[in-house]
Every structure is written in C-alpha cells, then in structure tokens.
C-alpha cells in the first residue's frame, strides 16, 4: 500500500507541522517572571494536576502537530494506492489476467461453473478498466493453455479470446502462469497488476520453488476471496481377475474433503458401457472411502468406469479402468522347423495351448509387427532375428525352446545363457523354488519334476545376472531366466515337442507354459501401465496404429524408431488402440487426483503473501467487488477521510485544551466575593 499525492508541491509545507513543537520548546525555556502574593495555592494546584498536566500537554502537542500535518496532506490531495510504489499517475496501467481452467474450476456454484464465473468477471474487468489500460490474458491449468503475446488495448480480441476458453481436465499450477505473467510484464511499466481469477484452492499454490518478485517490480496481485467447497473424488479404480472365482472384481477408493462429505453419495459401476450395479461407499476414516464390485465376467480384458454421485464437482467423480487379464497378452509362436506337421511338429503342443495364435516360420519374422505387451515363443529357431531382439528390448517376453537347429550358431543377445554341447543322457528335473520368484505362481506339488524325463538337450551356461529356474539330475540348468532391456526371457535346454523330453505330455505342461507366458507378459505394460493421467503420453512399441479417443475421434499415430507415441490424452476416458482394423489394446486416462486438485480447501492469505515476496496481495470479495477493485488499481482519494479525522482531532484539541467547561473567571470571582 502506498500514498501518492495529486498536489505534491504542498508537501514542502510539511515542516510547518513541527510548529507546535518549536513553540512548545521555545516557551518552555523562557518563562516570564510574575510576582505573586502567596505561592501556596499555586503549589497546591500544581500538586493536584501535575501528572495529568504533563500528559495533557504532550497529547495536545501531538494533536496539534498531527492537525497541521493532516492539513498539509489535505492540500496535497492524498491518494491511497496498493503497490506500484513510486509509479507516476501518468504511466499507463498494465494488467495481466490469469484465468484458471483446471478441472476444479468446473465446480458448480449457484448454477454456474467457476470457470464460467471467472470468464464473466474477466469480461467485467475489461469493461471497468480505462481504455488506455494495457491488458494481457493467460488461461492456465498446469501449463499455459492460451495467452496473449503481450499486453494490449484491443478489447475485442480479448473478448474473443475469453469466449474460447474452456475448462480442461488438467490440474492447477499457478507458478507456471505467474512465470508467464512475469514474462508478459517484463517490458511494461511498474504500474502493473496481476489479477488471478481462480478458485484459489490451496492445491494450486503448492509447487512454488521460487518466489515471484516480478523482476524487481512491485506488482499488485489481486485475487478473489476463496470460497472453498465440499468435494468427493475417486482416487483410483482397479480391476483384478479373481482366478479362483473366474471373474473380475473392481475395487475403487476415494476421498472426501472435508472428511465425512461422502456420506449420502453412491457409487455406480459401468463395464463396457453397461451399468452393472450400484453401491454405497464404505467410510474408512480420515476422509477415505472405498467400494468393491464383482463384474461377473471372465473376459480377457475389461474396461469401464466407476462413478460417484453426490457433489457439485462432477469431473473427478468418475474413474476409468482398462485392464488386461494377466497372461492374456498376445503371443506369437515361431517354429524353426515347420516342415513337419501333426504331432511331430515343434509347435504342435504349443499351438494347442494358444489356439488363436498363428504359427510363424522364421521367414515370417521380419514381416510381423510384434507389439508390447506380448510374448514370442521360439521353438527350435535357427537364426538371430534383430526384430525379435528389438521386441524383447522394448519389453516383450520371450520363451525359448532349443532343438537340433539351435545348435548351429543360434546366439541372440537376449539369451540368458550360452548354449553348449548336446547331452543325450536321460535326466529328471528339479525345481529351484526357493530362489526363483516365477515358481511361486505354480502349485509345484503337482509339477513333479521327477516324472519329467529329459532324454536330450543342451548344456546351458547361465550368463551373469541370469537365474536358474530348474536343473537336471546332472546339475546342468534346465530352465534359465534372464532380462534384456525391458523384457524378460526364459530359456529351456530342451524342445517343446516329445522328441527330446516327455514334458508336453505331462499334465503340468499347459498351466506351466501359460503361467510362464503370463509372467513374461506381465513385465510389459499391464493393467497398471495402461492407466494414464491426463496429459501423460501413451507409448507402445510397434508400427503405425490408430487411437480412438473417448469422443470417438480416430487419430493416426505414426511410429518412430519402432515406437508409437500418442500425446493427445487431454480427456479422461477409455482409449482404444486399433491396428490393421482390429482393436489390440485399451487404455484408461484419468484425472490426476494425486495432485490434490480435487481438494478445494482454500489457500491462506499469509501463504499468498509469502509467495509473492513482498508484493501487495489484495483479496476481493465475491460480490460487489467492483468498487474495491477500482480503488486498488486507481487509488482511493482519502481527502474526505482526512477532513473527518481533522474534525475529530480538532474536537479533541478543544477538549484537551479546555478540560472542563468553566465559567468566566470574573464570574467565579464575583461569586466568591
């Protein structure tokens, strides 16, 4: 806050206000002598008034000095202003409007969303400000959404820009907007202001590492008093496949601010666009609530959303999920010796396990798009294929069975073990269950390794970092596990057919191989990985594909370096990835509720003042703010108030100078006589 004067030349008269003090000191030192008949009455009177006299004298001195001071100020016509110390009236005012478009601004207040109200206020501000005021506009969320290139006077342009502003699904980062405002105001005069049109929730003011000094300018920061609000939101929804019950279960968790606000609301579960049921949330204390719902479907993948009903911010009441059943990732079988058909084929038993999967010859590898998540099962492959190496490196899984062709120099980089000589001695298998996590997925009591007979295979020498999942009677590794890039690789010393062992005929073969594929596929983007937050890019290895947004818009996503990158995840919902006309994946995009955006608790004025590093922060009321707004920007003429204060001081002076209304001394004397 500062005071400027319309007639500053009068301030030269300020020393006049010291006149009472000078007079006081002057007369204090030179009292005149008066002869008097008897001093005892004077002494007695002095004794009685001594304490009050001194105080009264100083108060009178103060009042008189202040009166003169205010009189000088009165002629100088003071204006009370906020910020812009030293700014001259003549310099044009520059204003930057920061309009919050984060999803919390969708909160409905009095039949209107907060963002709509902010737009109304922005238009009103354009009306109120003088024509010569230079105005800039920044619409922001956790980034700058729209901004004018610089402050200007073109009101029509600004009005059109305001009309285009829509609420986003992003969170709030006021720091970024302020940084942009600082940039906009860098070339402007110091007579400037930043007007924040936001819900002023505390979540928008957390990410401040630096304070805003506005390049050594003193800027008035104007905002509206936060109105807070009750809100509930869903913080997460997750679907898990219950293997024992053979169906999907959806778990949801949410929060309420303040605690208890969730009472009275309800949860609705939607799967594949169909409403499956309703439930009431269960309070967990501290504002947490949760819900659980059985979908009754055993589909390989499931997508949908959970919706909470019962508050005024609808955007964060819906949480989407898209989950693929573990092990249900795509698999490709590559047979290194596809000449033989029927039960003699290397891939015969594998094909039985994955009936929908095509069996490829090694020559088809370069023609096939291997997408992550996915698993390739190599059976008696002869050559190293760079495309497969790339696939594994990007996160694909590889299950490798060796055969007679594999001994002819098959040594891709992703192999977890070196391939040695062939052994021909019958041996049994022992599970290394204590050391390998993968085995915890199987009921090994039914996987009796002693009944697996391995007549032939390769001697494997595990590489550094690899682990042995199973060994042979001789102690040689039978199955070796390793990682390559983001992918996992499982290498078996023998074949996937009955030629070198009896494993394919054992009852454990089907669940074991499927379990291994699920394990290898789980290393890839799974149910968790395909749950993105608004604004997060979707990445996937593979070639060109299309993504269908929740609004039904299809976007062609080119691949670069074997990876497709989709960045237009601005709206929450279920996105479908389509390749060659076939849906290959769904992923869910949700609001970033972890940022605290849904918590509408207001920021404190003290926190704002700390943040703006000494720049004055003015909070306007929600209603009838115009007068105060203009007084903050243009200043308030306090001459009237000065007159009032001077009047009060004048009365005080009279009272103190004449402590009691007394009759004329002559009358007093007459009465005594």
């Amino acid at each position: 806050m500062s005071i400027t004067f319309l007639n500053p030349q009068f301030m030269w008269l300020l020393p006049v206000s010291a006149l009472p003090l000078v007079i006081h000191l002057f007369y204090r030192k030179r009292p005149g002598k008066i002869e008097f008949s008897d001093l005892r009455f004077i002494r007695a009177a002095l004794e009685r008034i001594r304490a009050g006299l001194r105080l009264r004298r100083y108060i009178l001195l103060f009042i008189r000095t202040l009166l003169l001071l205010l009189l000088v100020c009165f002629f100088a016509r003071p204006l009370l202003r906020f910020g812009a110390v030293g700014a001259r009236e003549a310099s044009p005012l520059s204003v930057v409007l920061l309009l919050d478009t984060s999803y919390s601004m969708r909160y409905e207040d009095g039949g209107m969303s907060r963002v709509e109200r902010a737009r109304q206020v922005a238009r009103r501000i354009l009306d109120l400000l003088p024509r010569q005021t230079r105005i800039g506009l920044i619409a922001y969320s956790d980034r700058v959404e729209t901004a004018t290139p610089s402050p200007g006077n073109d009101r029509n342009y600004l009005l059109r820009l305001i009309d285009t502003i829509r609420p986003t699904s992003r969170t709030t980062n006021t720091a970024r907007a302020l940084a942009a405002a600082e940039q906009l105001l860098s070339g402007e005069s110091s007579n400037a202001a930043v007007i924040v049109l936001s819900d002023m929730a505390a979540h928008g003011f957390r990410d401040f590492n630096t304070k805003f000094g506005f390049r050594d300018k003193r800027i008035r920061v104007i905002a509206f008093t936060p109105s807070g609000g009750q809100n509930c939101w869903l913080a997460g929804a997750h679907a898990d496949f219950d293997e024992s019950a053979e169906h999907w279960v959806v778990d949801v968790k949410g929060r309420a601010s303040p605690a208890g606000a969730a009472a009275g609301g309800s949860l609705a579960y939607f799967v594949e666009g169909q409403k499956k049921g309703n439930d009431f949330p269960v309070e967990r204390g501290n504002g947490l609530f949760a819900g659980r719902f059985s979908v009754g479907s055993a589909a390989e993948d499931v997508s949908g959303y959970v919706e909470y009903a019962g508050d005024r911010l609808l955007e964060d009441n819906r949480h989407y999920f898209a989950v693929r059943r573990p092990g249900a990732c795509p698999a490709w079988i590559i047979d290194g010796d596809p000449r033989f058909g029927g039960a003699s084929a290397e891939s015969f038993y594998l094909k039985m396990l994955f009936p929908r999967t095509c069996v490829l010859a090694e020559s088809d590898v370069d023609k096939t798009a291997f997408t992550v998540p996915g698993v390739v099962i190599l059976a008696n492959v002869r050559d190293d294929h760079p495309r497969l190496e790339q696939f594994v490196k990007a996160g694909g899984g590889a299950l490798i069975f060796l055969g007679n062709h594999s001994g002819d120099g098959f040594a891709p980089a992703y192999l977890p073990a070196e391939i040695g000589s062939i052994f021909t001695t019958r041996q049994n298998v022992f599970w290394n269950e204590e050391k390998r996590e993968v085995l915890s997925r199987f009921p090994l009591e039914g996987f009796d390794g002693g009944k697996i007979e391995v007549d032939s295979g390769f001697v494997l020498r595990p590489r550094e970092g690899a682990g042995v999942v199973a060994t042979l009677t001789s102690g040689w590794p039978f199955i070796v596990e390793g990682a390559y890039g983001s992918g996992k690789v499982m290498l078996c010393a023998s074949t996937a057919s009955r030629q070198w062992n009896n494993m394919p005929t054992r009852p454990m073969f089907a669940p074991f191989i499927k379990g291994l594929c699920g394990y290898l596929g789980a290393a890839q983007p799974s149910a968790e990985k395909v749950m993105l937050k608004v604004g997060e890019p979707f990445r996937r290895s593979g070639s060109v594909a299309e993504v269908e947004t929740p609004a039904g818009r299809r976007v062609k996503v080119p691949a670069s370096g074997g990876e497709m990158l989709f960045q237009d995840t601005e709206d929450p919902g279920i996105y479908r990835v389509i390749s060659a006309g076939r849906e290959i994946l769904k992923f869910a995009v949700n609001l970033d509720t972890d940022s605290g955006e849904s918590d509408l608790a207001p920021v404190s004025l003290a926190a704002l003042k700390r943040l703006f590093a000494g720049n004055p922060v003015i909070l306007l009321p929600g209603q009838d703010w115009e007068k105060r707004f203009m007084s903050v920007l243009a200043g308030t003429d306090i001459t009237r108030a000065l007159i009032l204060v001077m009047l009060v001081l004048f009365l005080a002076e009279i009272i103190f100078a004449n402590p009691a209304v007394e009759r004329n001394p002559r009358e007093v004397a007459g009465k005594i006589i």
Partner: protein
Amino acid sequence: MKFLDTVTISKIANLRLRVKSVVEGSLAGLHSSSLKGHSLEFAQHREYSPGDELRRIDWKVFGRSDRFFIKQYQDETNLRAHIVLDASGSMRFAAEGRETKLSYAATLAASLSYLLLRQGDAVGLSVFDETFRFHVPPSHQLSHLSTLIGKLENTSAGGDTDIVAVLRDMGQHIRRRSLVIVISDLLGDDAGVIKALKYFRFRHHEVIVLQVLDPHEIRFPYDGEHAFVHLERKEQVFADGEAVAREYRRIFGRFLAGYKSGFRQAGIDYRMVTTDMPFESALCLK
C-alpha cells in the same frame, strides 16, 4: 493628603459606621451606652444625618441657622475603635496597574478613621507585618485624623506576615470593649486567624474584618508558563497559568469560603474587598 483626598471624602461623607452591639465610652455618639444612670449634660452639636432620631434635632438651632443639628450629651457613650492594618510583603501585590493592596487598605483605614472621628468616636491605629511596627492609641479629637493619616502615609509594605501572633498579642492588650477593624489580605493560617479573632469576641470586642485582595489573586487569569515569585520570601514556582488556573480557583475559593463561614460562626463581620472596587461600596459594611 495621599489617602484622604477631597474626592474620597466627598464619596464617603454621607456614610455612617454603625456597630451592632452596645459599647461603653465617655462621649455620646451613635452608639447606646451599656452604662446606666449617667447625667444628660449637653456636650456638643453635630450635624444631622439621615437615620438620626428626629427628637434629637435642636429646633432652636434650626430656627437660627435653617440647618438641622442634633444635640449630643455627655451620657451617650462613644466608641473606641482600633484599626489594625496589615503591611506585610504580600500587601505590596498589584496587577494590571492597579494600586497595591496596602495602598487600598490604607485608604480604607483613613476613610474609616475619618468617619469614626467625625461621629465622635475614638480611633487608634496599629500597623503590623511580622510584629507590630507601631501603635497609635485611640483618640476622639478630630485633629487626631491628621496624625493617623501621617502614619499611614509613611507605611510601606514590609517582610513576612505573622498575623496570628500579632492578633493574639493585641487581643491581650486592649482592655476596654472596643471596635477592632482588621484590614488585611489574611493570607496566613486561616484557622489561626479565626481563632485569634474569636478571642476578641470572647473579650466582648466588636470585630470587623476587611479582607483586601487583588482581583488577580481570585481569578488567576495567567496564560502560559510563568515563574511565580513570592513577594515576601522571593521563592519561585514554575507553572502553566492556564493549566493550574482551574485548580487554583477551586483551592482559593475554598480558602475564602473557610474564612466566610468561620467568621460567621464567630459573629465577626467579614467583608472581602478587591482593589478594583470603589471605596464607598467597600465601606458599606451593612
């Protein structure tokens, strides 16, 4: 004469000083005697003045001179008056060019002397400050007036006051019942003064007190800071006249009220006069 010029005399010539109670004396005057059985031997004529009994007018003289005279007889007692004048330092006080309290008091004393002597009463004069400076015994001869005025003219204000001691001393020396007229500013121990004068009343003297004050002593109309210097002791007090005035007036008023009620209770005639009052109104004791 300094204190009794023609103007003053003309103003007070028609005044009569009357005394409430009966006094004893050797000459007939305006005062009835307490002594019974005296002869009615003619003593002298005196000019009539309003209030005199008509039956006392000597009609023969009126026939001859066409003027009213009354006869005075030897058996009508006359008054012995003692004028006690304060000439202490505080009586020197005067403000705004007015005459000093002492000057005013001396004029009052001279006027009273003139009145009393003209009535045929005997008048004595005592002047004091800390102690008696001098004492002129009472005499009823008119020529005594010049002696008294001469003494008054030579009186100047002196040092400190001890009015209580002086009055006590005097009370013990006046034997015959008399009229005691005290002219002073009474700026001393008020209780002591009242007590001392009560003693006079105890001795059946008639007492009249004329308290002479300057108007400034009552109003205290000073503005701003001043050093107030004591007239008698040269002590000084710094005070803001404006600030202390209100409290001063309250205290001084209470001081005067104390005298007023004290004298009333003691049956003493008391009058406060200020130096800006005309003498004739100051002498209107009744």
